[in-house]
């Protein structure tokens, strides 16, 4: 047992160190970009405070260290970030960490639904296409996949909104809960009901990638020697698909599924904005549009962390699932 866990932990540690290094680079890049942008954080901060004199403004700048050299400012920011202080959002006048926490809770529900939906639909369609390669189900589904992967997420969201929320009125037009209701009164069902349409948008925008990858992988597997041998042993096509096909495409499918976190997050920015869904994605859009620099930096780092964790899980998972890697060191 010990021999199995140690290399696993070693790999986990190595990947973890690499991930932290990557996050550090992301923080430098994000900070540099924000510093170079024409947005003036002091101006944004003072917007809500009413008229201020030049002296008061200079005091605020002095207090915040706006005139310090950029490297020093970066390290000040980083050290408070590491001590858990992500700053105060100029838009919401609340700590960035609180906002990210709340919004992430909404987003994770949405993204989890979309993730499971797109993974399930994508995998199933990929299997059908792979098994029926070049016959009519494959040809039709392939075109459907190309169509969906070229549709912009926001446009797809608008169309779904128009058809299902406005014309058919099957779903609410937006938000994560009925309007005018206290947060404590909202039932789980109502939350799910509000989340369904944006989740559908998000999964429709990302399933085709998984489907096309699964298709290709299944086609490769079905051309392998061991499938030929299974045929020679009299196994039918259905049996081959169950016994050998699924088994051999499951590992790449899992890897693909966990590394799709990045696309999912990117898509959620657009989908949440269209549906006014109060998640992390729409917060990112608001922070950007309103020059809320602390929130923007916070979300940037948090989403980088989110994507890295997805990749880390994918990396670790195939070590657990694939016997060739799992038992390598026996």
């Amino acid at each position, binding site marked *: 047992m010990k021999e199995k866990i140690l290399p696993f932990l070693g790999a986990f540690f190595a990947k973890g160190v690499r991930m932290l290094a990557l996050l550090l680079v992301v923080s430098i890049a994000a900070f540099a970009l924000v510093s170079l942008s024409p947005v003036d954080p002091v101006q944004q901060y003072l917007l809500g405070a009413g008229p201020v004199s030049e002296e008061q403004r200079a005091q605020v700048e002095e207090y915040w260290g706006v005139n310090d050299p950029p490297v020093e400012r970066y390290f000040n920011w980083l050290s408070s970030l590491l001590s858990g202080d992500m700053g105060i959002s100029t838009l919401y006048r609340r700590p960035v960490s609180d906002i990210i926490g709340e919004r992430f809770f909404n987003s994770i529900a949405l993204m989890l639904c979309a993730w499971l939906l797109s993974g399930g639909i994508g995998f199933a369609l990929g299997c059908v296409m792979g098994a029926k390669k070049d016959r009519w189900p494959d040809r039709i589904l392939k075109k459907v996949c190309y169509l969906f992967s070229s549709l912009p997420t926001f446009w797809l969201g608008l169309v779904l909104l128009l058809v299902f929320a406005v014309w058919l009125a099957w779903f609410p037009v937006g938000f994560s809960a009925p309007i005018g209701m206290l947060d404590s009164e909202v039932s789980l069902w109502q939350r799910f009901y509000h989340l369904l349409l944006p989740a559908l948008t998000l999964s429709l925008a990302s399933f085709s990638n998984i489907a096309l990858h699964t298709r290709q992988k299944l086609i490769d597997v079905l051309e392998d020697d061991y499938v030929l041998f299974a045929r020679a042993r009299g196994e039918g096509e259905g049996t081959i698909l169950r016994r050998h096909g699924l*088994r051999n495409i499951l590992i790449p499918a899992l890897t693909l599924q966990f590394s799709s976190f990045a696309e999912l997050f990117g898509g959620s920015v657009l989908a949440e904005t269209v549906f006014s869904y109060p998640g992390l994605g729409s917060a990112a859009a608001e922070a950007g549009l309103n020059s809320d620099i602390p929130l923007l930096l916070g979300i940037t780092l948090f989403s980088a962390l989110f994507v890295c964790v997805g990749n880390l899980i994918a990396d670790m998972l195939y070590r657990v699932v694939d*016997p060739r890697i799992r038992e390598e060191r*026996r």
Partner: protein
Amino acid sequence: MEQQPLLKVEDLSVTFRMYDGALAQKDLSVITDLSLTVYPGEIVAVAGSSGSGKSLLASAVLGLLPGNAVTGGKMYYRGELLTSEKQKALRGKEIALVPQSVSFLDPLMKVGPQADGAKKPLPTKRRKSIFQRLGLPEKTEKLYPFALSGGMARRVLVSTALISDADLMIADEPTPGMTLNQALEALTIFREMANEGKGILLITHDIDLAFAFADRIAVFYAGTTLEIASAKDFQNGPDTLRHPYSKALWQALPQNGFVPLKGFQPYAGHLPQGCLFAPRCPYKKERCERETPSMREMRGGEVRCFYAT
């Protein structure tokens, strides 16, 4: 011996349709005019060097050639014409394949369940005794194919055919990678099965083992047979053999002088006119380069040569 042959192959040809450039279509002929019979109770070895199309013969009999292959000629199993439906029905039941290498095992399935196959009821008990007989340790069944040595993998592959209880077995290079003892053991099992009335088509380039275990040997060259003779004729040497290539093959064996034959086997797509062996034949005459000889009976065997005696 006028019993019905288990497998009869008549004038089999396999051609691959290739697309050369945009529209130019090219037919690549890999097997031509191949005729062969396997009777119950005998081992017929198909011996030839690499690239002679031996493995394609196995795929053709099983109906597992790739989609761009076109076959000609006829094949019969127990007197019945082998159509693709028939092949599908017989695969794994009446006709079993012992493939070449570990790549024919599913890399993600443990060896035991894999050898058991998909047919219910699972032959687990029978498989365990076959594993034991082939000298596979009991823990083998819990291993994944990547953990097998080359010899173990081949024994597992042999075991699948033994488990299937098929009457005709096509073994595609079953012995490389095994130690001499393991190879002898595997071939002894084939011999026993043949003695029980099964037919075995042994595709091999290990001529020595073929000599020792086969009843008849078909010498395969550039996609066709040049000579079919009893293994005794090969053991006796050039005097009882018929075709110049068979004689050269015999003389090329280490224990028989190690005399190499000049030249090399023509590749598919570059086959010579007339007799396929003519370019390397020391006795060739003008007619050999014009006409393709067909198989003819001679001294209890068959030979594809105008001038063999």
